[in-house]
């Protein structure tokens, strides 16, 4: 399926910013299952980097390892050069990594507004909170309408918007997005990717995007990594990968 983006990616975006997030030889286990077998990747400031791969390749695991939900048994996660492995998740959030989890993780019993405010939980400055809220509402006007509704009563697309909006409330230096298009109607998928693109362009948000919808992800991203059973099998510019025959065959269904 094609995603209509307002602009096509500049191939050279990769060189722009300095190195922000770096994974160095990460090994993560679930019990005795070796889920990540030495993942290394880099995310530069201002980039959208996407991580594609089939079901069970370890994409979500990678994000969870970055945000501290899982602890790597080996390797380092560096944010601005500082090692973040074995730091509890709330401190990682504090350090500036925002994670919009797979399946959205909206708090069903909190109102939309409260959900958003939870995103800025660490922020104590009231006017800044208001500013961020307005920012989110301008991106997702629908959320404004639903402000007093409980999170659990929203539709799937709205919940995804809420989850992204909540991630933005943190104003993270890098935003981890886990399958934002999962389970959404095609029209909504397009809207979500447009917003991702806008976020990056208008607000300069650095994004690490995990997607099964490889085509859309590669269209929106600057660079990409392909993950296969816990290891990175390919990497490169998104535009190159989009046209790589191996990728087309395996992930684009072409």
């Amino acid at each position, binding site marked *: 399926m094609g995603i209509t983006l307002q602009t096509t990616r500049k191939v050279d975006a990769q060189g722009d910013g300095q190195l922000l997030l770096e994974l160095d030889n990460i090994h993560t286990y679930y019990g005795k*299952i070796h889920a990540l077998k030495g993942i290394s990747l880099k995310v530069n400031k201002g980039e959208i980097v996407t991580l594609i791969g089939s079901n069970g390749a370890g994409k979500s695991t990678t994000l969870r390892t970055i945000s501290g939900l899982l602890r790597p048994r080996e390797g380092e996660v560096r944010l601005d050069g500082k090692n973040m492995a074995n730091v509890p998740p709330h401190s990682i959030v504090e350090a500036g990594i925002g994670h919009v989890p797979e399946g959205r993780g909206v708090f069903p019993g909190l109102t939309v507004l409260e959900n958003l405010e939870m995103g800025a939980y660490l922020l104590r400055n009231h006017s800044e909170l208001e500013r961020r809220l307005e920012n989110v509402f301008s991106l997702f006007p629908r959320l404004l309408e639903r402000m007093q509704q409980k999170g659990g009563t929203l539709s799937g697309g709205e919940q995804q918007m809420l989850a992204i909006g909540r991630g933005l409330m943190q104003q993270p230096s890098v935003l981890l997005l886990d399958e934002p298009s999962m389970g959404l109607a095609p029209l909504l998928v397009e809207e979500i990717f447009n917003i991702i693109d806008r976020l990056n362009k208008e607000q300069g948000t650095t994004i690490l995007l995990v997607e099964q919808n490889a085509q859309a992800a590669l269209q929106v991203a600057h660079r990409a990594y392909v993950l296969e059973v816990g290891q990175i099998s390919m990497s490169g510019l998104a535009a190159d990968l989009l046209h790589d025959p191996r990728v087309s065959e395996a992930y684009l269904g072409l």
Partner: protein
Amino acid sequence: MSEQPGKSSGSKSTKRDLSDEGLITRLLAGPLGPIFVIGYLAVVTFLLYREPRALLLRFLLFAGLLLIYYMPHKAWLKLLLAGVTVVAIIPAVGLKNPFLLEIGFQVATFATLALGLNIVVGFAGLLDLGYVAFFAVGAYLWAIFGSQQLWQLHSSPGTATVYNVFPLGAWWFWPFLIFGITAAAGAGMLLGTPVLRLRGDYLAIVTLGFGEVIRVLANNLDKPINLTNGPQGITPIQRPPLPDFILHGALPNWLSQVSGRTIGEGDMYAFFFYFLAVVWLVFTIAFAGRLENSRLGRSWTAIREDDVAAVAMGVPLRRTKLTAFAIGAAFSGAMGVIYAANRTFVSPETFSLTQSISVLVMVILGGLGSIPGVVLGAAIVTMLNIDVLQTLSLQLSSLRQGTGMIPLIGVPWAELPTQLDPARYQRLVFGLLLIIMMIFRPEGIIPSRRRKLELHEDDDPLAPPADSENVLITSTGGD
């Protein structure tokens, strides 16, 4: 996603299980093992015969059964050795010290209760905090009909004249074993029916309430009709008749000679009840073992794991839950009848909530869902309750009456305050034990295979620290 932690592949764990042979098992392997165990039993028996009241030896004798359990040998050999221990050694030493029979009887009693509860909680996953109620139903059934209580229905408790004629003959004990099973199963259904829709904690509090209701009824049904004699309890209750040659004459005389003390009617009854309880326990073990692997047992597992899915698979939820309650209750109903006859006395205090909890603790401590584990749990808790702490206190008291000094501190034993007696801190020890067990070995001492898999999937020397945030994932489930 396949990254879920809870769904580790089965094959891997099974392999580990097979390779995971315990220290004892390894030590006992080979032909030397049985010889060693027999020698051990012989030594312990010999010593116990000379020193019938030594706590440690008593403990070692029961530990012998555990050794037999861990022997990696043919089932018939293990059964033979265990049978000899239970049928011959314990009664033989019991000749010297009847307290051993009492321990055996109580262990068997509570092991049966724990096995019954294990069906409800361990197999079917229905948390029952009022289990002792069914025990009470059985006990009171025989207490009311097997005593003279029926003559006293219209007199205030404790004020009636003592009669000497029992309304029913003592042999009615045997039919009442069956009635006890039936009545307890009925009570199980009675409790089960209204609570079928309840889950988890709601079920727990309702069963707890039911247990209390039974106890309060037993305590208060002395008016308007004096059915239970209230807090006074019912006494005397008849014991089943034994043939005269057992109670009097050559047999007890011979036993008296052998043991060097007078063996009277009471002692013969102690033997009788010990064997009766053991027989019922063995029957319960066999029955529960068969159930576990039956169609019904699998239905229980199914509703325990996911009742919605189970219903979708065609498991009749209502019937399956009710049979769990009924069968679980039935075991303890019969034991209630036996217990009442053994004690010749019942009173409501026996059936308190604490008792229910302590049966639950036996189940969890030994290993939820594991039959050998539950029996061991019952043995440990019971011995702790009636034997170990009490005996330690006595020894302490004996020291206190001597003139010895406490080592290291150099204070005479006599000055040790009685406030420190271990028997007074039974619950403290018990509580501490529970906490430690739950933290370090939540699956119980002898876990059932399933539970072990569930609880120790991360058990690996290289695994991240226990209190890592990692845990959060498991508690919220997969994605």
